[in-house]
């Protein structure tokens, strides 16, 4: 606890945590729309495409000001998005291939430029290469203002165009039939995504930034069925991943921030996939098991009913004679216990008998009239008697 407080007291760490939380929040919100529009890979393509922009911005200005580098990154990423769009529209190349091509070409050019910069005599060797894997410790207070301004702008756009973006994500064809300018809206949404990505590049790096776009949204989808809640949860997951990843990496020397943030975000995804109510794998498996167990026990219930028809209904039957009714996949004793717990059968001496509720359910399962006479039962059950 004290360590936690001293972190928050530490001015640098507070800046780092706040900045990383902010970029996580913005990318979590915009990532939701990318995910729902099945464009999760777009984040990956755009963040890689930003690299040559950073390098060129430095080469032209010889400045390492974040404002300049972020602008360069944004322009390159935006051009990448435009290129993907026009390749898909004008050729037979599909979206995923177009993204992969733009990603690798831009990233390759970026690496070449970065290597060239490293060889320049006056470059001041350190600095730009942190954009590869991110160094949140390098965040300064004035960087936060820039991030807040840009990220806040992106969030404001989402708030103002909420219903349009929602419809664009759900049913673009219908949106267009209403007269909404689909292509314009797509451009605005892509621009907001580009902003979310470029403000994170310094802290997270171009290589892993896409994880912060996809992971929080994928995790958030597990917890809710409403878009508004999903956006809020995703933003929250992004902020938590960003802040805790940055803090962990800052407390260990030479541990890059990006990978740490991604590890935290991935942890959230795994927990969400496993344990979310309704959609979680664990609850799903439990439900499936419980359902099977119930069905298996109801088969046994029906068998007991069929057996009992050969005597008077309350005649007890042993476990062995019930088990002999048919091939049972599963433990008859366990099924009988389940039925007892549900009050459908009861022990009677060395055997088992149906309770009244049990008899009613058995008839229901066999689709028999509750007040059927014995003659009617004989007809209905002909051929279904035990072997």
């Amino acid at each position, binding site marked *: 606890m004290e360590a936690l407080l001293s972190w928050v007291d530490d001015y640098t760490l507070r800046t780092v945590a706040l900045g990383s939380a902010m970029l996580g929040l913005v990318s979590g919100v915009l990532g939701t729309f990318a995910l*729902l529009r*099945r464009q999760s890979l777009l984040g990956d393509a755009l963040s890689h495409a930003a690299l040559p922009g950073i390098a060129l911005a430095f080469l032209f200005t010889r400045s390492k000001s974040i404002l300049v580098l972020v602008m360069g990154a944004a322009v390159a990423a935006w051009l990448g998005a435009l290129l993907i769009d026009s390749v898909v529209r004008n050729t037979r190349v599909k979206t995923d291939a177009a993204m992969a091509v733009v990603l690798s070409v831009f990233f390759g050019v970026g690496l070449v430029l970065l290597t060239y910069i490293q060889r320049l005599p006056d470059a001041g060797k350190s600095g730009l290469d942190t954009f590869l894997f991110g160094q949140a410790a390098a965040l300064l207070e004035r960087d936060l203002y820039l991030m807040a301004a840009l990220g806040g702008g992106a969030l404001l756009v989402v708030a*103002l165009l*909420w*219903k*349009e973006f*929602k*419809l664009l*994500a*759900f*049913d673009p*064809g*219908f*949106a*267009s*039939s*209403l*007269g*909404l300018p689909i292509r314009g809206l797509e451009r605005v949404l892509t621009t907001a995504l580009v902003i979310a990505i470029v403000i994170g590049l310094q802290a997270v790096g171009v290589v892993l930034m896409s994880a912060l776009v996809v992971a929080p949204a994928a995790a958030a*989808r597990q917890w*809710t*069925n*409403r*878009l508004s*809640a*999903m956006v809020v949860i995703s933003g929250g997951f992004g902020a938590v991943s960003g802040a805790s990843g940055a803090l962990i990496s800052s407390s260990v020397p030479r541990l890059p921030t990006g990978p740490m943030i991604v590890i935290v975000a991935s942890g959230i995804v795994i927990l969400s996939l496993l344990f979310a109510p309704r959609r979680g794998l664990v609850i799903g498996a439990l439900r499936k098991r419980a359902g099977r167990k119930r069905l298996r026990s109801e088969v046994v219930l029906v068998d007991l009913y069929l057996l009992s028809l050969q005597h008077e209904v309350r005649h007890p039957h042993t476990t062995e004679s019930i088990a002999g009714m048919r091939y049972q996949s599963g433990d008859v004793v366990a099924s009988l216990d389940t039925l007892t717990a549900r009050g459908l059968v009861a022990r009677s001496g060395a055997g088992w008998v149906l309770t009244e509720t049990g008899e009613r359910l058995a008839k229901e399962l066999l689709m028999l009239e509750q007040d059927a006479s014995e003659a009617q039962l004989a007809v209905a059950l002909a051929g279904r008697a035990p072997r």
Partner: protein
Amino acid sequence: MGDALAIGVEDLTVAYDETAVLWDVDLEVPKGSLMAIVGPNGAGKTTLIRSVLGLTKPAAGRITIDGRPASEAKRLIGYVPQRGTVDWDFPTTVLDVVIMGRYGALGWLKRPGRKERDLALEALDQVGMQEFASRHISELSGGQQQRVFLGRALVQDASVYLMDEPFQGVDAATEKAIIELLRGFKAQGKTVVCVHHDLQTVEEYFDRVLLLNVRRIASGPVSEVFNQDNLRLTYGGRLAFSRREPARSLD
């Protein structure tokens, strides 16, 4: 005569690559029609609807809605896309989807409010889905999905409805509910055009029909143009279409 047309299509040609999907198609849909578009796969039925909606750019041709250029008349058109075109696991509720039908009339920056909610609930009632209002859309069956889409079209309060296979994959009860709804539209003087696949029900459900196979084969009142010769022209000689009695025992 021109002002009595709900939809007018002249010389419409659409091509995706070099080959024409629609070739020089003319179509007149008088107001208050209940029209089916029939034709084999790849005949351009969906493309025709999408062109009227402005979703597909034609290579040539002129389209008017209520006498006005289609691009200026979007508010007059209601659209029911094929169910399969959207992700039914999208995080939203039934009520929300129906409210989306009001987005066009709402305009920029405005959020749907009580009025939109009430309209949507009323529409859900009309399609028999009111009790599903707060359900997540992934819980719906195919027929229920179709009803939700129709509810969304209802709140649009359009005068011309374009529907892409509204009867596809729905059960008999939903089919009956849909046709009742369409007849209700017609009774209000609205116009409905449906892409339709079941030739058996054309005569029972619709009063006009367009037989389409890239070109317009025939178009007009069902009693005049829906005959063996035109069907053979539309579907080619392979189709052995036997004129059976349409199933009228849906109740």
